[in-house]
């Protein structure tokens, strides 16, 4: 008998009914996982966090080319350009410092007034700066990945801002990275109010980056193009008063109960590289638990 002959036959026919059995097994595990992941998130959170932590090198590698081009770009900057930029930044700093002087006085005054009113809410929020290291590979979901995670004290549910306005919220954390759901994702909603007159509405994402939908606005509501919408703080998820969007388009259709209103997000959702993650005020945790925060990501758009 030739020894290798049996071997070849074996390698060709070794997979008989076994793959089918394995497939069924794996399908059952998958079904259980999917159900657990969508209905009982706390069960799979550790698995998710461990997987994401293990895949940090992949994120790092995926981001490496961009870091490299940045580095090359920085190498090729001329002295003149740098001086110009420096000058520009100094001017900007001066303007912002003046503004912050005024702000400090206002914040102090505001805190004083709040103290007089026996309200516990402080004006200032603690933030941490973080860099965007990836975007979701799924073209139908609007998510970004930032380079701070559970090690920096981040948790799911924290609000994320850029220099212009509200970007979204953290949905998952691993040890070193976090996943941020942007306001433009079709499963995202923000409670907002109109700055001009305090009308409260809900701003829904719709899967497009350049506009959001303001929901359930009656025909007669006092709202105009150009109105600024800021987060109202209702629902306990987002801090109050951060700019979210500006009303860009109002369409009134006779026969429809509500006006269709589009708003342009203030944050530069697909451009910002540096973002701020806001920590919820610590002295307020007591009242937060009482309020029972409404889960801000809602299931369906309509």
């Amino acid at each position: 008998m030739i020894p290798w002959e049996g071997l070849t036959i074996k390698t060709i026919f070794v997979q008989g009914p076994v793959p089918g059995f394995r497939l069924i097994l794996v399908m059952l595990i998958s079904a259980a996982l999917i159900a657990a992941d969508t209905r009982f998130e706390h069960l799979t959170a550790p698995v998710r966090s461990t997987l994401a932590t293990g895949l940090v090198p992949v994120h790092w590698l995926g981001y490496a080319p961009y870091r490299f081009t940045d580095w090359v770009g920085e190498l090729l900057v001329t002295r003149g350009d740098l001086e110009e930029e420096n000058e520009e930044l100094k001017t900007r700093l001066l303007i912002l410092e003046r503004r912050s002087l005024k702000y400090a006085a206002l914040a102090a005054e505001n805190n004083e007034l709040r103290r007089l009113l026996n309200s516990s809410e402080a004006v200032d929020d603690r933030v941490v700066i973080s860099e965007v290291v990836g975007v979701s590979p799924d073209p139908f979901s609007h998510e970004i990945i930032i380079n701070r995670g559970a090690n920096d004290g981040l948790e799911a549910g924290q609000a994320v801002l850029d220099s212009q306005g509200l970007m979204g919220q953290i949905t998952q954390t691993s040890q070193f990275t976090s996943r941020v759901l942007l306001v433009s994702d079709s499963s995202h909603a923000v409670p907002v109010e109109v700055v001009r007159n305090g009308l409260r509405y809900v701003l829904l994402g719709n899967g497009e980056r350049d506009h959001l939908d303001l929901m359930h606005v009656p025909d007669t509501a006092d709202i105009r193009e150009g109105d600024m919408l800021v987060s109202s703080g209702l629902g306990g998820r987002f801090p109050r008063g951060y700019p979210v969007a500006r009303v860009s388009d109002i369409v009134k259709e006779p026969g429809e109960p509500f006006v269709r209103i589009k708003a342009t997000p203030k944050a530069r959702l697909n451009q910002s590289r540096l973002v701020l993650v806001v920590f919820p005020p610590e002295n307020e945790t007591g009242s937060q638990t009482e309020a029972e925060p409404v889960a801000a990501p809602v299931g369906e758009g309509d």
Partner: protein
Amino acid sequence: MLSVISYPLFVVSVIVALVLSISLFPVDWLAFRPEWLGLVVFYWTFRAPAQFGVLLAWCLGLMLDSLEGTALGVNAAAMAVVAFLVLAMHQRLRMYPLPQQCLVVFLILGTNQMLVHFLKQMVGADSPGFVYLWPAATSAIAWPAVTAVLDRLNRKLG
């Protein structure tokens, strides 16, 4: 079926596929990104059906779930189906000329994408139309290049 396969190459190809599936593709054309991990799973179960199979494909799919942020198990189940279909037809597949192999790649990865799409819709995503099938088509186009490169490396390193 290759006489020799290189395990380090397998690890490297998986890492490259994972990196490619989150990076290095123009943002505006994201809908056309080939399903790199699907191609890798297809290649390895096709070339070495005795060593790679359903369970390994499932684990790789789980990694993709974590990267894409989909519900855990969605891509995993779809990858397992790819491995299963390849295992079921790898002997016939070997006889096919390259264009016909590309067609099979389209069909199998299309099944994968459909399953992913179906599961996502069940979980609550919202993406109408047949746009989700584009990755299967571009994967079929990429298949000759992928198999040529991996075959060559396998012969050199294995």
